[in-house]
């Protein structure tokens, strides 16, 4: 099933199972680039690994150093396959580019269920299963 066209932040192609948070994610201090695991008490992604997943979250929060975390995930091989946001800010945009992670925003996240197979290609977001 094809969805409405999104806005490209970093153009590319990536597919995987959705890992979804309904609340903002903090990158610096929460997402460990060595393991790809997110750590934040009472956060829906606490203890989850982002590697190879299509990471779906409304927006980022916290330190501007967060861009470097996305770059580091690429270097350690723990990067998500793609990222889909409601509204992408400067921190995530810069991180997506320097980490070469296909990223789009301006997407209605309600149709993207956790665990569904989703492909991001350019500005297309396609739900392949789920």
């Amino acid at each position: 099933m094809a969805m409405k066209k999104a806005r490209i932040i970093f153009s590319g192609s990536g597919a995987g199972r959705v890992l979804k948070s309904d609340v903002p994610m903090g990158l610096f201090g929460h997402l460990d680039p060595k393991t790809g695991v997110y750590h934040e008490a009472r956060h829906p992604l606490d203890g989850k690994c982002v590697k190879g997943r299509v990471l779906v979250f409304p927006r980022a929060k916290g330190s501007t150093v967060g861009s470097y975390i996305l770059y580091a995930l690429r270097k350690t091989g723990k990067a998500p396959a793609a990222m889909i946001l409601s509204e992408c800010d400067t921190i995530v945009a810069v991180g997506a580019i320097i980490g070469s992670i296909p990223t789009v925003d301006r997407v209605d996240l309600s149709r993207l269920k956790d665990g569904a197979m989703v492909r991001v290609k350019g500005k297309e977001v396609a739900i392949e299963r789920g």
Partner: protein
Amino acid sequence: MKLSKRERDILAGKRGKGAAKAMEILAALGRIHGARRMVAVDSVQVSGISYGNIGEHGLAFLEEWAGLRSRAVVAATMNPGGADRTLWKSLGYPPAYVRKQERVVAALEALGVKPTLTCTPYQIGFAPLFGRHVAWAESSAVCFANSVLGARTNREGGPSALAAALTGVTPEHTLHTDEGRLPTRIVEVKCAVTTGADAGALGYLIGRLVSEDAHGGVPYITGAVPPNGPERINWLKALGAGMAASGSVGLFHLEGVTPEAIADGARLSAAAKARSSIDSLLPAKKALFSGKGPIDVVVVGCPHASAEDLNRILSLLGERKAKIPFWIFTAEVIRKQSQVNGVSAALERRGASLLADTCMVVAPLAELGIRTVATDSAKASFYLPSHHQAKVYFGSLEENVEAAVRGKWR
């Protein structure tokens, strides 16, 4: 967003891979923020220099970018790093930390960024002209350049500022445009704002007040009267630093004082859709004061002290001597001048030390054994408890000099 032929060539890699990556970042940011085109910038201030702040991943990124062999095409300067490059040994820095810090500086130098290592480039010869575009990171310098000098810059981050340095352009949006510089709110100040610390406290309150306004808010301030004479600059510096820390303000207008308010005050103030007032600085002073127990060190110079500030500290000390460590953070160039004109030696005889290349916010205070400080900086008082788990006595420069001389607060 429309790119020029030159910008498309850069994007296509005709000026190297490093510049192409830079243009890719700028084009994406321009798209996100609704820019129609790029504007040429006169200078760039790069932040994210302290190794303690950016860590091994930031360092790896900068070294990789440096390896692509692109260089800055406009004047580009560095924010403070984590260590004083001359005095680190006597301050007790771990050598391993300093080696990593030097690698950050070396990578940026390879990219053509000058190792000025100060948050106040405008005090050492890199002041932008009125109406000109620059791309500065370092929130307090952004506020000063926009508000006091009337130059135009958004609040850049480390990578986006570096991207502007490598290409000479930045996306034209928000504070680069006339519309983006219109005030979102009139802030009527109904209390005295006497000292630089008062100005910082006022800035702290204003930053919080306008943080929900569009683009972090542009306050049009009335009723606050800065001191006359050289202290006025320090006061304005502290005001901007305070609001840039507690909110994300990149520009303020102060009625009768800042250049755009003087030139066009009536039109600007008419554009503000909201209005608030501030009756007292006490809430800020309470929020920023966390001091308890003995003071490890008195720290002033956040933002970095000017030559004027050094003279003022010297005259407040008189013939008295500090009983506890008293650190004054400044730019290396200003320290050098003060070594030539004798101010540095005079301060040292009175127990005060001049530190350069770093500052209290980005230095690894806890590793240096510092748990409790006194300062006149609202910005430092805001960051130190969360960044370094330090307790902070916040007060005027006069109170800080007294604390240094007596060895305790009040």
